[in-house]
């Protein structure tokens, strides 16, 4: 199929243009680097450029108030390190106009999802906490598996009890959480959840959501309302394509905008979203900013290891040839609107549910296909009969734990677990359904907030049913 290509200007950059020595576009001194498409900068002007982009993003949004305490999510990677440096720089006395917020750092330790030797884990942790302590800001650590037990509604900050999911770098130099036994159990549970997920893409997606929820929960308990993350435009471009490819189209604006208010009282803010990965790396390189390389589950994998990895390969590959790729993608997302944040939310990622769609939609089309090719028959009668779908026994819960696995309804067993994956599915957004599809672990190993909130939602639905006769048509369910 041929296509209508409006913009005839999309041609790969001519290579001879790239390597010419140029003078700085600002001051005329010899340039030391080239950014954007072919703008050359000297070191001083480049710093002004980066600092301006960072501060302008914060200033324009008017979200962060004077003297506000903010939590900075710090992974230790290049982007985080650059953000930390920019904050330090902005708070230093020599800054032209001092930044007005007061940062606290939080690092989520994710070694448990990687298969690294213990010594390597220890090295990463020590390096990260060294970077954090050197910054002089109050710093806290947490561990991903603790996300499984968090209570999203908890608001107090009595951080001295044993269930507290975070600890200060000062309090514990050995970098171990307060209760080692509990975390060891949780580590086992997390790996069983990850094993139960059907693909690397699902695992990656689940880890990201769990991490975000853990950070939000900790911010809430510590009394923060803003979380700064160091997602750069390249990262966001990859995120947008990954989201679109995973059915999270309605969440693109939340996941990649300057701020993400889906969690209500705690907001994610992305102050370096106007800078790309190359600019931040150059910044680190030029100003001696130290960072750690933290592997993720697809590190060293094939480009096809997961959807996110593929999207990354795709975006960075295009970016090399078409320098405006990333900014094009990010600009697209800026034109997208937010979903209604007051509607019912996904029990995992907390984004508004996008599954209440009309009868002519992708979701219904897939449901119909599944119905046809699993429980149908060639006869014409069964097309119209809804009974094939209404049966909640073994047929519809294809891979629920405890089922004989036939999936044809022959065994007639009902799994003994309290909540079936299928029941949780109803309370997940399209994207999270994809991640948990064919989950074959026990639902009890899933994050506590997922199961309790599903129970609560089911309870509510039951109550609503009881009073349904007395409800007026337009009564809204809050």
């Amino acid at each position, binding site marked *: 199929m041929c296509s209508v290509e409006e913009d005839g200007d999309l041609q790969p950059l001519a290579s001879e243009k790239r390597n010419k020595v140029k003078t700085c576009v600002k001051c005329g001194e010899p340039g030391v680097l080239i950014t954007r498409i072919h703008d050359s900068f000297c070191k001083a002007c480049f710093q002004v450029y980066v600092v301006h982009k960072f501060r302008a993003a914060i200033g324009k949004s008017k979200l962060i108030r004077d003297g506000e305490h903010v939590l900075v999510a710090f992974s230790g990677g290049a982007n985080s390190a650059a953000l930390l440096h920019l904050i330090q720089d902005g708070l230093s006395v020599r800054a032209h106009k001092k930044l007005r917020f007061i940062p606290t750092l939080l690092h989520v330790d994710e070694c448990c999802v990687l298969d690294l030797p213990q010594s390597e884990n220890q090295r990463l942790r020590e390096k990260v906490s060294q970077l954090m302590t050197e910054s002089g800001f109050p710093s806290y650590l947490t561990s991903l598996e603790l996300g499984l037990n968090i209570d999203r509604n908890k608001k107090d900050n009595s951080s001295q009890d044993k269930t507290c999911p975070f600890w200060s770098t000062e309090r514990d130099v050995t970098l171990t959480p307060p209760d080692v036994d509990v975390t060891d159990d949780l580590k086992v549970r997390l790996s069983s959840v990850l094993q139960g997920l059907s693909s690397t893409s699902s695992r990656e997606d689940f880890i990201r959501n769990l991490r975000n929820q853990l950070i939000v929960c900790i911010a809430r308990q510590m009394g923060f309302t803003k979380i700064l993350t160091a997602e750069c435009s390249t990262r966001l471009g990859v995120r947008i394509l990954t989201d679109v490819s995973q059915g999270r189209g309605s969440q693109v604006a939340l996941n990649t905008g300057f701020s993400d208010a889906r969690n209500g009282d705690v907001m994610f803010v992305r102050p370096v979203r106007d800078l790309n990965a190359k600019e931040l790396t150059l910044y680190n390189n030029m100003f001696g900013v130290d960072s750690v390389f933290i592997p993720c589950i697809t590190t060293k994998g094939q480009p096809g290891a997961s959807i996110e990895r593929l999207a990354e390969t795709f975006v960075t590959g295009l970016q090399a040839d078409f320098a405006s790729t990333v900014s094009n993608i990010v600009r*697209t997302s800026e034109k997208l609107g937010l979903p209604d944040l007051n509607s019912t939310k996904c029990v995992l990622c907390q984004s508004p549910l996008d599954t209440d769609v009309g009868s002519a939609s992708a979701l219904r089309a897939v449901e119909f296909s599944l119905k046809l090719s699993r429980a149908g028959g060639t006869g014409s009668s069964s097309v119209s009969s809804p009974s094939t779908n209404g049966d909640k026994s073994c047929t519809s819960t294809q891979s629920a734990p405890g089922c004989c696995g036939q999936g044809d309804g022959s065994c007639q067993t009902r799994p003994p677990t309290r909540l079936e994956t299928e029941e949780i599915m109803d309370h997940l957004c399209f994207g999270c359904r994809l991640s948990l599809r064919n989950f074959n672990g026990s639902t009890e190993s899933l994050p506590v907030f997922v199961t309790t909130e599903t129970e609560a939602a089911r309870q509510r639905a039951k109550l609503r049913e009881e009073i349904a006769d007395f409800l007026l048509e337009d009564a809204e369910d809050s």
Partner: protein
Amino acid sequence: MPRKCGSCGVKNAILKRPKTGDALCKECFYWAFEEEIHHTVLQAKLFSPGETVAIGASGGKDSTVLAHTMKVLNERHNYGLKLILLSVDEGITGYRDDSLETVKRNQQQYDLPLTIVSYEELYGWTMDAIVKQIGLKNNCTFCGVFRRQALDRGAMMLGADKIVTGHNADDIAETVIMNVLRGDIARLRRCTAITTGTDGYLPRCKPFKYTYEKEIVMYAYFKKLDYFSTECIYSPNAYRGFARAYIKDLEKIRPSAIIDIIHSGESMQVKKEVRMPTQTTCTRCHYISSNEVCKACVMLEGLNKGRPRLGIGKIHKERRKWDEELAAQGKLQTVDGGGTDSGNVQVADGETESSAGNEQRTCSGVCSGVC
């Protein structure tokens, strides 16, 4: 041991459905394939009884399967539609002439009337002639813009109420990704609609919106349908090729990704503040357009005046260049001949793309009254 069909459980399965991963026998697959399209037609309320529907037929697999399925469903479920085949002859030797032969055979196989409209008669240009002018870059732009209009004009000539095209789920997913990459928010919003053009001219619908390309191929293969499978001889568009490759790679990782992307496209909302192009009609040909003069007319003008790049890329850039040249010539004339100043030279200011100043230029007549 051969696997049993997941649907009837009686016959041996011969294929694994790319869409759901289920193993089915041939009959159950045909049945599921057709019923799903019927489901889409019903749920999206694509047709009403008594309508005349033009099937955009290129002779390729999608449109051949579309023609076949539409005929089958029309009879099985009594849609009460009058189906006609409509082909566009772009005038590409070695490609379209061969595929049109396939359409002519389909006409007999399915017993449906066939009409062919050609670029030559509509615009006075064949694609071969256009490629000679513009070269192998951007030629697809011409073809795409012209084809869209050609289909509409053909269908209107035939008195059709609707046009159906064979765009499948893969095509739509690809377009979503393309539009994200290009930042084309207006198209991003439109591209997942199953019916487009409801407010202007003939509505077009895509009954295969949720149908995987692979399943269409399987259907055509097992039914032994007669279709033409050669890529266009003029190289396919490079940038779309990237999106296509990405979709294919994605499908390998997670087969449902194609539908997932369509879901994403359907559930994306556009910010209220974002300005959208308003649809009006072209002042020359009265066809639906987002500018005063539609793309096809601008392109045609460019071709007829020997400035084929006029319709490509930033319009005002090429327009300005041309105007400057004309102005320079005008000045020369003024110096030489004195007297008559550049009365016919409209110095467009470059910002108002194809604005009032350009209206005086009309087609030189070759386009047989389209402009």
